């Protein structure tokens, strides 16, 4: 039993992830393009799901999540390129570094709520972006860093190959979302939800609200950081563009349009928005307009997002 999650529940949830994993195994047969898009979708899905721990479960709106993705990406990249540290280790180090940045933002913003919290997370994201642009000696500024080493091969497996990398990303995605899923079903998850529902009520029945808010930040930023690391060693080029406000809003759109507070919703959001972006390639300059419109429509008519719509339809069908 982990944090109040019984073995039966653990196995039942694990079963779904194994089935989804099995279904996704043959996907690379659809060709390089589909494989490539799917890899990016999966990395975004983990990032959006990790953001859901903050936004959906703890009720802490964050407009700076891309910053943590970028911190993970730059950390792993710089460790590999300057000190020759294996990306396998660097990616984890990136996750931890993202959590350290999460603390730097999380602790001072503990008492902030609503729009004040949103503005401070937004400001933090912009600070990280400015640092990446201006610390030339470390990050090469706006030029970005090309030639990032790929994940080192294991035996015959060469991770420069999209198909091989696809399976790394698949395992990473399934394991990450599974862990987050377990978290939401655990005592910890319920405590986080109690903070979302009413901070004062939670405090009055013994919940150490500041401590658990910090935990939520640590967890959410860790997974964003790891996704960032994998992204860097997959595309093998990063630039400050991955930490912009636009990116943060893109990730938040996935979480909201997918349905926040459901964990799986943001994963669906990542799929839908990524597909939309591929379809609208030629109208890219209008993308924020479209996301904005979608968010407004979802919040107005279906606050529980795509997940809620699917749930609603399934219920109707059953009846």
């Amino acid at each position: 039993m982990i944090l109040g999650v019984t073995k039966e529940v653990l196995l039942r949830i694990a079963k779904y992830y194994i089935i989804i994993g099995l279904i996704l195994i043959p996907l690379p047969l659809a060709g390089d393009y589909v494989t490539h898009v799917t890899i990016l979708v999966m990395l975004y899905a983990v990032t959006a799901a990790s953001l859901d721990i903050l936004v959906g479960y703890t009720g802490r709106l964050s407009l700076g999540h891309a910053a943590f993705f970028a911190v993970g990406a730059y950390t792993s990249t710089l460790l590999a390129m300057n000190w020759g540290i294996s990306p396998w280790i660097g990616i984890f180090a990136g996750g931890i570094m993202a959590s350290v940045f999460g603390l730097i933002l999380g602790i001072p913003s503990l008492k902030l709520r609503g729009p004040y919290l949103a503005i401070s997370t937004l400001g933090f994201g912009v600070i990280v972006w400015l640092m990446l642009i201006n610390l030339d000696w470390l990050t090469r500024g706006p030029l970005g860093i090309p030639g990032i080493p790929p994940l080192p091969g294991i035996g015959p497996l060469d991770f420069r190959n999209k198909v091989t990398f696809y399976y790394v990303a698949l395992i990473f995605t399934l394991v990450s979302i599974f862990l987050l899923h377990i978290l939401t079903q655990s005592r910890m998850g319920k405590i986080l939800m109690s903070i979302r529902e009413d901070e004062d009520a939670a405090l009055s029945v013994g919940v150490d609200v500041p401590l658990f808010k910090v935990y939520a930040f640590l967890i959410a930023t860790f997974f964003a950081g790891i996704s960032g690391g994998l992204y860097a060693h997959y595309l093998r080029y990063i630039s400050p563009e991955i930490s912009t406000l636009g990116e943060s809003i893109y990730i938040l759109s996935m979480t909201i349009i997918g349905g926040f507070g459901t964990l799986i919703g943001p994963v669906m959001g990542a799929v839908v928005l990524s597909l939309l972006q591929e379809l609208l390639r030629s109208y890219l300059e209008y993308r924020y307009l479209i996301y904005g419109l979608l968010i407004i429509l979802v919040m107005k008519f279906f606050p529980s997002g795509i997940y809620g719509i699917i749930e609603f339809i399934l219920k109707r069908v059953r009846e």
Partner: protein
Amino acid sequence: MILEAKNVTKRFGGLIAVDNVSFGVKEGEIFGIIGPNGAGKTTLFNVISGFYKPDGGRIIFRGQDITGNKPHKLAKLGLTRTWQIVKPFLGMKVLDNVLIPIYATRGVVSGLDEREAVKRAEEILEFVGLLHRKDVLAEALPHGERKRLEIARALATEPKMLMLDEPAGGLTPTEMDEVMDVVRKVRESGITVTIIEHNMRVIMNICERIMVLNFGRKIAEGTPEEISRNEEVIKAYLGERFHVRS
């Protein structure tokens, strides 16, 4: 004395909401706090339960100075309050509402075995008469049941003293009786109760002792009979013709 407040003062800018109030609550009793609107009752509760820092005075709970302690620490020490405007965790099941305090006070990582925790939560729901509602979302409960859920959730912290802020506020007479039965049962189970209440029928019937506040100051303290005969209390609050009903 399980709780002693000594010269507690709380100011908001120029307004003195609680002015040099001292009182003590005896172990095992039901202690009432009454007074007109704006007398400082809820502010006093907020100070004792750690939501406000007092500008002066000390609060002693079970021999320990708890002045300025954080609310979640006090809940773990056995001093738990409820809210006048109930604050259920609306989007969560009734059972989960009661499990949260059990996790929070006994431990999230270790603490009670999950089966034990659920068993305890169900006992408490049974105690307040909400067991049949355990699997519905708290938002589905009507006001009367939310009031009882509020008490159940506070009880789940296993308090030594329960502070109830208008537990009968806005209830129909029948619902009020249900809540009062629960309060009596709480006391019978050995928990000290401090209660703010506006309804005189309620307060005069269940309290051993009552303190009266007016404009932040304590103007009287005593048994319900003494209070109902006190000239100043009658003038400030009760009105000329109030008599104790048995």
